[in-house]
């Protein structure tokens, strides 16, 4: 299992469209993906879970990924977060 923190950088935060892109990307990997904010941990492949985190700009999210493609998954998701979830 590997873990890494990312910061939400896009203006609108982890809103529905951004969360949808995250879940899309996460769904491409076999590994189990967890996303945590403070004490709340949700399934990274659940859009409802991500929305519940209500992560505004500046929020720090802790990713923990476990599985045979965990390294690729982490790289892809960290990259997505760094690019502001592809928000225009």
């Amino acid at each position, binding site marked *: 299992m590997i873990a890494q923190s990312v910061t939400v950088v896009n203006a609108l935060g982890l809103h529905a*469209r951004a969360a949808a892109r995250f*879940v899309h990307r996460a769904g491409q990997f076999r590994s189990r993906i967890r996303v945590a904010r403070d004490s709340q941990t949700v399934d990274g*492949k659940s859009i*409802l*879970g991500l929305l*519940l985190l*209500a992560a505004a700009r500046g929020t720090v999210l802790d990713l923990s990924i476990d599985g045979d493609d965990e390294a690729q998954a982490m790289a892809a998701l960290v990259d997505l977060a760094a690019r502001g979830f592809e928000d225009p």
Partner: protein
Amino acid sequence: MTRNLRLVGRGVAAGTAIGRAVVAVRDAGQVRYRLSASGVDRERQRLKAARTETRLQLEEISTRVSRTVGQAQAAIFAAQLLMLDDPMFTARVDALIRTERINADWALDRALGELRDVFTREGDAWLRERAGDLADVGGRLQRNLRPGRDPLVDFVRELDGPLIVIADELSPSIAAQLDWTKVRGLVCDVGSPTHHTVILVRSLGIPAVVGLGSATQIILPGQTVAVDGATGEVVIEPGDEALTRWRQRASVAEAAHKKLDELRAVPAETADGVRIRLDANLEIAEEVARVNDVGAEGIGLYRSEFLLDRAPASGAVDEATQTETYRRLLAAMAPRPVTVRTFDAGEERWEATARAGGHRERFGLRGVRAALHHDDRFRGQIRALLSAASSGHLRILLPFVTSAAEARHARALIADIVREIPGAPTVAIGAMIEVPAAALMAEHIASEVDFLSVGTNDLIQYTLVIDRTDERLSGHYEPLEPSVLRLLRMIASAGRRSGKDLSVCGEMAADPLMVALLVGLGFRAFSMTPAAIPVVKRALRAVDTRQVARLAREALVAGSAEDVHALLAPLAAAMSEEGQTASWINR
């Protein structure tokens, strides 16, 4: 688990029944039931199929929106698609079906409720909006569980009886489609004795209790429920003692029924030998056998609008289907008369949206007004009736007439159609007297038609300004208000002076005490729910017309309904002592 818990509501259709609870809420849009082991697989399959269908629909919408509106707008549907496959949602629904053994509709509602709670608890306005997206997906998924079908009707078809339907409210359109050989009792949170659904179940001999407030929350799906539609009692998970009591009541009812059966062939007559005609009201044409069983002299009121309830959502029912229905009904009753009331449906009934709710009565285009306004619908029904007329003795009754001119217009319209149909037989045309305006002008209306029929339900409603579906007003619905009695007296006098046939066909006619008073006011013909005929017939045999005429005269000058009740108290007491109804006359 609630055991042997007793609730008391308003008993509106007599009889007893015991069965398993099916709970239906949101005007039967959602059904709750506990599944058997084999039912679990069926429901999981249903969920899977609905999910596939929902996904296809959302993909199509998303493609269309991205092409016509823009990609940004289509993204919301992409999010909805992800919600559809979300482990917190559909997997949870599936788990609820498996572990709690509940049907898919119910499981879906519970899962949505859980998520909604979490989303709204977070207190974020933005998040609450996302709950809206979720509700949107959930609603679509639920509709796809039983596409194009009424969930309760569909569900009852799959279950084994005996069942008791526990509903917040049950619309007549759903009630008319239910399989009442499986549903043996009805319990509703709201309702009144004159609601169309209650009229329907009473005519089917199905016990019903209404006005329980929160029966749908107290009674759990799958629980055994005992219903007594006379006392208004509902017992959840009845113990041995309650079960024994219910069996006793069933056998008492059967014995009383046997005794009444002996009167079947005897004509209805008062103690002083005045002949009274007792006809039956009918809602569903196929139920005509019940009318014959009780020895009705004819059908005094066939509520044809129930045909619309069984029609597709559009509310349309074609002429050929109508002709066939009328033909069979007329043939089954021949040579006795069948009075068909033309569609008495408000505007909302003609629109598919009516099924979604909006049951409150409105002053819209009703009855003969609607007929004159949308005359193609009316013409179609008249053509169907005239085409069937040769199969028996048909009478046509116009609902909701408010003036002599309206009756004259409708009659002229019918005459036009008669000319179009070669060899159409002459058919008697009558008018319903069911609004105060018609009661006040009954004599003039009588001169335009062949017979009059009094609709007491609406007459009371419009005289006292009571919306019958508003439970807050149910206590004010009072047939014995002197204002109502005075209007009834005017109608009876107009009928006698005109020499035209006159009968009473509202719910008042099913109550022996009311019938006695109506005889006193001068009425000699009644049409009622079939089950009431033997009861009324027996009661009439103990009524002396001169005595009840005296009572009626006193009632007409009474100052309040309470005073009228007091006047009738001795008669009521005598009637309730079963088998001793004859004694009150000699007191």
